[in-house]
């Protein structure tokens, strides 16, 4: 995405930041979830 040619209105700028922020939260949550899951899988498989 070419940022130089992106003439965003203030409203678009706000929406852009809002979406970026909510996406970051979701990605962070998913990564945390998988870290916990992989830990749990490892513990279970070691115990077998």
């Amino acid at each position, binding site marked *: *995405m070419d940022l130089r040619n*992106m*003439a*965003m209105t203030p409203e*678009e700028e706000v*929406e*852009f930041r809002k*979406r*970026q922020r*909510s*996406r970051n939260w*979701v990605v962070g949550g998913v990564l945390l979830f998988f870290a916990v*899951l992989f830990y*749990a*899988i490892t513990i*279970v*498989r070691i115990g077998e």
Partner: protein
Amino acid sequence: MEQTTPHILPADWRDFFALTKPRVMTLVIFTGICGLLAAPGSIHPVIGFTTILCIAMGAGGSAALNQWWEADIDSGMKRTANRPLPAQRMRKNDARDFGILLSASSVVILGLAVGWLAASILAAAIVYYAVIYTIWLKPRTPQNIVIGGGAGAFPPMIGWVAVTGEVTAMPILLFAIIFMWTPPHFWALALFVKLDYANVGIPMMPVVKGERSTRRQILIYTVLLAPVAIAPWAIGGTGYIYGVAALALSIAFFALSLPVAFRQSVEQDSMQPEKRLFGFSILYLFALFAALVVDRVAAGQGWI
């Protein structure tokens, strides 16, 4: 520049979620859990959860790939025009990459955490749906639904194999049940939404072969489904709880398909028998697989 250009904005995460077809996934997750619970043997809850998660991720990934490939077709149908891609809320390549990421990681995680036999079946299911069905056969044959049904038939088999580690008659029968169930289920729907498909050039059965042929084939598949649904009990794989449920559900399904098979729609038809059959077909599958699990639990507890 007054005009808004929705592509520039990063897509809302909810649109990525919508890309995985969450409503179809409920049936996938349900049948997967049933396969897992009905299989003989035990599985650690964490591993069982991982299995279901991977099945869901694989289904979501192939759904995303399906919509990436069919974006143009979807934009021409009322039912699908508001999906993230035809509504231009997301870049096409993002959907493709998301689909590949979900599919690939689901197979790798299932292989590492559970076993490579279950993972291979999951990989086969994804390739079957996203490539063989979506790209190759769906636009080419009016039997596309029969073929597509094969993709939806994999989840209980994967759940079962995750527990037992081997492919036996039972997981194959569970596969066969969903395989035979899909055509009457979907063609009942296609009968009352057929105009949509006609406009975008997908050779749906009612459009290509006409209503009469479709109605007759609904009946044929419903009849063929009955022995397959009863077979797990007949071969001694389940107890009588499942057997009685399968028998009763098969008779009801057959009874509801009869009026659909032998009527012809008229102008301004309300299509009540078709809608009733479609509604019941969903209940049928949920009830049949629930009975399978209840039967297994009852046997395990020594009640029967």
